[in-house]
């Protein structure tokens, strides 16, 4: 029975993962965190994460006109790492995003993305 902490442990098991958190992107608050965070500040990272997700979800540029063509994940790459944001779609109202910070050299973007997809689904799957 995977809880939030278990989910984050799994996320840290992704090759190259440095830190992970679940962020409420309406408020930019880290609901749960593990590992490191950019600038070692989970809350600032969460706030930035929320801004990015808000930008992607609220601007019509990225929001599809097709019904149920929902935003899945956002990938931000830097010279030193990957920042993966995976939206967790719960039935009830909680706008959450799973955030994983990967080391650029050890991480594999495709693998990490697949693993995060599974984690996000398992978190809320019945």
């Amino acid at each position: 029975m995977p809880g939030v902490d278990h989910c984050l442990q799994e996320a840290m098991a992704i090759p190259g993962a440095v830190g992970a958190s679940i962020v409420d992107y309406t408020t930019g608050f880290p609901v749960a965190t593990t590992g490191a965070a950019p600038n070692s500040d989970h809350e600032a990272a969460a706030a930035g994460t929320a801004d990015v997700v808000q930008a992607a979800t609220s601007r019509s540029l990225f929001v599809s006109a097709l019904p149920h063509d929902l935003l899945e994940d956002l990938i931000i790459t830097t010279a030193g790492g990957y920042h993966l944001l995976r939206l967790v779609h719960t039935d009830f109202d909680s706008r959450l995003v799973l955030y994983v910070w990967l080391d650029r050299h050890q991480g594999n973007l495709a693998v990490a993305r697949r693993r995060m997809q599974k984690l996000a689904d398992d978190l809320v799957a019945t």
Partner: protein
Amino acid sequence: MTTASKTAAPSKPAAPSKPAAPARLLTQVATERQTGALVVGGHPGGAVYVLEGRVIYAESPAAPGVGELLTASGRLAGRTWQTALDQGTSTARVGRLLVEQGHLTQGELELCVLGATYDAAYFALSAADAQVEFLDGAMHWLGPIAHIDPAAVNREVRRRAKMLDAIFPDQRVDAAVVTPATRAPRERVSLTALQWELLVHADGQRTPADLALLLGRAGFATIAELRRLAALGLLELPEVRAEAPEFVRLPQARGTAVDVNRPRISADNVGTATVPVISGVRPAAPGPPTAPRSRPLPATPLSPPPSSAPPSSAPPSSASPSATLSTPALPTSASPSLALPTSGQPSLVAPTSGPPSLVPPTSGPPSLAPPTSAPPTSATSSSTPSAHGLSARETSLQASSTQALPSRARSSSAPPASAPTVPGPPAPAALTEETSANGTVYRPPRLARRKPGAKLPKEVVGEPPQIHPGTDEVLLKRIRTALRALR
């Protein structure tokens, strides 16, 4: 966790209710590693449940709880939730039961509880000053699902308050009734899904808390979106609405509609009145110079009825000694009863025919001779001052009696029973007014005030009822044809 702390009922209030900063009290409770509920009064207020110094849950009327979130979204059927409540409330295991029975995953439950807790904590703890009470040992029925550092809760509460002010610094949006602007202030508007939901469901009655509960959305998210909408100009701000609180437009007397409590004009100032005389105006007697003396307020033409009514002080002029007897006088009430049968609408006059013993209500209309009523009218021409003293109710009655008079002349239906029983003078008192009025300034009000659905008196509605049906019809027909020919 001890078993004692599991009981849902609070054991004893440790701290008495006192105004304090809830956030500071939470920190104090946390440092002492207490278990219980921090109940915050005020508006919206709320409660924060602490287990050994860690926040496990919070609730507030302004924020949907776990149950509302889960059921409003359709994630759980209401029945399922209720069953879990029934089974687990007493032992504070509702959350665990839901997971154990497979209705929710642990992850869902935790996320839901975390979200609801932070959400409610914002409303419960953001007040700077409130009545706070700590119920020692209280435990929430949901059970310990999440364990949150109180410091993080406090930090987050402060951060959220700042965020809201960064969006749109107007706290009234948070609590006031949501009213969407009728017209968008720009050509193109793009909304998020939640904003759309809020606007669709805002009906001018619901507060943000109502909307959050209805939609199963987090209270803070609702408020944040509402503030964004307000910043976009898509909401009417509370202050704009507060300036126009006119929910009910008061009726205004106009035209010939006459208020029962209409102001009266005293006899002396009618001549000098600059106000155009309309039907509501009180009669001016042809020439009673005695009236002004009795007036307490002669200068004001529109003095209110009660003050201007001097029944007792009215000069005992000519024909109406009985009118000075004061208002509820039986004679005055009896006089309308004279006209009653002819008026055809007993409901108007019925209540006033005070002593039933005197005026038998059953006195059938068509029984006897009209002449009995005729003399009083002619006899009483100059007693108007006394008529001023009549109460408002009676004047309305007189209105109806004046209506009835013409018809009475035609139809011979005055009640014989009432005429003898009624003492002579009273009837004059009531009738004087209209006789004098017919001659001079006073035009009697057309109608007394009626209830909304009530019928008009027949004599007003139209043709006088069945008077010599045969001949009148013929006559009318002739008149009509003649008129048509003229045209």
